[in-house]
């Protein structure tokens, strides 16, 4: 009988201790800075253009081939009378969030620190009715950092 009494005492103990539940949709738990949801592109506020030069490093390193990158000549390059030092710049960029496995490799291989993992709740609460809506294009990928919503942490 001792074991039964001990078990009952254990449950009574937790009865007294009170709930540990987090009420998720109402109260968002603060998530750590390193949290990685989905990759995003970063915005260079100095020259007002993306960091990304479209060098294809991430595209090649992606294990699941979820990225498509197209580059173009930078119209704002100094040689063309602009202010930017980037000769080439990203033209089109798609990331299929449905396929992405959030392994952080794209961030690690990027030579320009142009891509980072979203570390806010907005990266976790993506739900859509159509799978094609999970394919993010360049404006969508840039929007969050441009709006200052990302607490930037680029993995070394």
């Amino acid at each position, binding site marked *: 009988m001792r074991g*039964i009494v001990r078990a*009952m005492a254990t*449950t*009574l103990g*937790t*009865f007294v201790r009170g*709930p*540990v539940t987090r009420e998720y949709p109402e109260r968002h738990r603060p998530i750590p800075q390193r949290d990685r949801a989905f990759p995003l592109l970063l915005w260079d506020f100095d020259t007002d253009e993306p960091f990304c030069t479209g060098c294809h490093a991430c595209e090649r390193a992606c294990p699941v081939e979820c990225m498509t990158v197209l580059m173009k000549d930078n119209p704002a390059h100094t040689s063309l009378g602009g202010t930017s030092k980037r000769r080439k710049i990203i033209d089109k960029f798609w990331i299929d969030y449905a396929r992405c496995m959030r392994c952080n490799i794209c961030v690690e291989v990027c030579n320009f620190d142009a891509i980072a993992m979203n570390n806010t709740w907005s990266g976790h609460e993506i739900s859509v009715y159509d799978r094609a809506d999970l394919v993010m294009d360049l404006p969508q990928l840039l929007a969050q950092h441009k709006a200052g919503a990302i607490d930037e942490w680029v993995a070394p």
Partner: protein
Amino acid sequence: MNGEIFGFEINIWLDALARLGLAVGLMTVAAMALIYLERKVIARFQQRLGPTRTGPAGILQSPADALKLLGKEDLRPKNADPWVFELAPYFVFVPIFLVFVAIPFAFGWQIRILELGLLYVLAVSSINIVGWVMAGWGSDNRYAMLGALRAAAQGISYELPLVIALVAVAMVVSLPGDVRGSLNLGEIVTEQGHIPYIVWQPLAFVIFYVAMLAELNRTPFDIPVGESEVVGGPFVEYSGIRWSMFFLGEYTALLLLSLLGAAVFLGGWAWPLGETVAEQNEILGVLYQFGLTAAKTGFLIFTVFWVRATMPRMRVDQLMAFSWKVLLPLSFAQILANGLVLVYGWPDVLLLLASGAGLVLLAVIIDRAVKRPAERPGRPSGALEGEAAT
């Protein structure tokens, strides 16, 4: 042929209808409240919150569930036996409500004061096993069948210790004029004004409590409905309103047996000072007596929830062995001891001593039984040897 309700004279049929309607309505509400309470209490035991989304603290969860279940499609499997399948819920539901006729809530507050109330309660409440078996058989589902057979075996096995434990108490009820023994629930409660019977008959109470858990298919005896084994047992094919009838029946039965236990063992409305307060002030007395009944019933229900939050499930063979080899002999021994004490007119303290000794014996038996590891009851048959997907 006129009856009386709240002092007004009305036609006896109207009276009966009113009482029945009151009982059914009240019990449905009470059962829904119990469902909510169970979810909250068990959540607390598990450090969760339980329902929170419907109304303040989720208090409207049960009505919301009821509405949802009402709106659901009433499915019937293609190969099910239509009559048996559709009628089964009523066989579970109706008997349990009938039982309330004899339950005393306060002095004089009974739907009908029956001279053989205890007998009636036990007789009617065991009908619902038929409903379980019907549900299992009619569903044409192997899990349901397995669950129904388990339910039948369990219900019948534990009916006996339950009855005998209650009879042991009914024997020792001392009535005015030096008469012992009564089956009238009102009298049983009234006689506990000074000392409740749990003091004289602790073994009977423990047997009653265990058998009650088993009758209710509650953990650790929730074998017929074991989620992890037979996925809900006899109800696996039910949906919508029929399923909710089973569910409601289950919780009403919980309330009923807790009320019964409170009345027979814990002194119902009478202990402590139930009559004294009533003598001082009639209305206050009735309220106090209702409060006593509610508190004791609530306590019993709380322990049921507590046990549910704690205990693993027993296995079907252990369950049967526990009933037939342990509880039944012990309850017979209890009756025998009571009989000897009564026949020879020995002092009542002996009732307590005999019962207490039985309780110790029960604990020892459980401790010893655990030390023996189980053996494999069966041998391989090779029925599926080399058989591809079946």
